[in-house]
């Protein structure tokens, strides 16, 4: 179930790709955290993740959870962004057979899913091949 508060509080991360960079050790955490897992630092500055990267690994979901059944098959990927941060997202605008590990991708803001006719819509970034 999409509940308003759950989605609203992730907005900065999902809509603006905001991460937290530890001011002590420089490690970037996505989503942001309260304490740095590397150095135990507690201070972070907000950084916007780069919107380009390369494909680290992926899969094509053919048996989907109920909410995503209409979209299947669809690819989901781990993308290594230009600053070294790795994120999970869908990989769209390409056929499964076009996908190759290491291929360059760009992040675009897209719709993740909609709930019924008058329900909520959820958005986030998806990767598309850079051509």
């Amino acid at each position, binding site marked *: 179930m999409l509940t308003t508060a759950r989605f609203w509080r992730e907005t900065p991360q999902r809509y603006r790709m905001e991460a937290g960079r530890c001011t002590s050790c420089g490690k970037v955490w996505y989503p942001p955290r309260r304490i740095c897992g590397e150095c135990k630092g507690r201070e972070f500055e907000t950084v916007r993740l780069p919107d380009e990267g390369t494909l680290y690994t992926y*899969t094509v979901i*053919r048996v989907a*959870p*109920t*909410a995503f059944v209409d979209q299947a098959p669809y690819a989901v990927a781990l993308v290594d962004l230009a600053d070294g941060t790795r994120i*999970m997202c869908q990989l769209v605008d390409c056929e499964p057979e076009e996908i190759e590990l290491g291929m360059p991708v760009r992040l675009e803001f897209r719709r993740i899913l909609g709930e019924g006719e008058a329900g909520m819509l959820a958005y986030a970034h998806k990767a598309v091949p850079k051509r």
Partner: protein
Amino acid sequence: MRDVAVIGVGLSAWGELWDRSLRDLFVEAALNAVEDAGVDSVEAIFVGCMTGGLFAQQEHIGALVADYLGVAPIPATRTESACASAGAAFRTALMAVDSGNHDVVLVGGVEKMTDVDGGGATAALAAASDQEYEAFHGVTFPGLYAMMARAHMAKYGTTREQLGLVAVKNHENGSKNPHAQFPMKVTLEQVLGSVMVADPLRILDCSPITDGASAAVVCPLEMAEKIAKKAPVRVTGSGQATDSIALHQRKDLTFLESTAAAAARAYDMAGCGPGDLDVVEVHDCFTISEIMVMEALGLVEKGQGGPAVEAGETALGGRIPVNTSGGLKSKGHPVGATGVAQIHEIVTQLRGEAGDRQVAGARRGLAQNMGGTGASATVHILEVA
């Protein structure tokens, strides 16, 4: 710290059991374990369950099963570490006995998975991953392991065939296990031709949806020799560890750090290493999992899991038999029950009661249970007392 022994083990029926409820399944397994132990009563219960809420709209599992076993007011606590819930329950039960708080403790696990449909089960299981940064994007558990498989294949050259051979071996073993949910043998061709779930994993790479429960009775070793019906099995090592819940935070997607850390602790406690094991049960929720767990346990070098399976090293009669029970793949995988069902198999082997799948002269075994994509792991080492 006191030495702890397993003196009884039991399973319920496992399968797609529409006529059986969660409470009824656990009671069946528990009564079997208590009867196997030959004891009159137990002092406390620890029960693993991953998501009674999402699968059966029922929480408060400890009190529920104590009630239906007719043993209230003894204390009963549920533990949850996703699919490692029963492994965590077992470790907690050991600490309850170790500490002198309790002597005879019932431990087990249960999951009732078929009260929801396939999409509902996929969504319930996704609660073991990062709901906001994994499940949110539509990725499923087969999908997460598929990404790990592809990374492993890219880094080490693990082949699609090697993955398939894990399923072939485990169904071969399961065909010798009267408890197995899917005891049929499968061929490599059948695995490679089965329907795709999440590339490159196919349905025969995946463990099934199972209703079922498991149980064991543990007590201090010195008491075991007096009260148990059968020869006690000693628990010599116990380890548990965690890793990042989401795959995107892992330093190396191809290595299960939590299993390696849990194993290091268990080996250290038991004073042995991977070369000293006679039989091993691992968490083969997917075929790639078994290969990666073998590497994390040190049964083979990093990247050598696939070739070892191909060479038959982990088959019955091989260098180190893995998942003689048939594993999660063939025996079934009621997620919250699996950890203690693995203990059941190791105890059965160490007692020499494993029938056609018996590893001759087995004296030391290991059980590895895993939650999520390896964010939780438990490792236990058991030995003939």
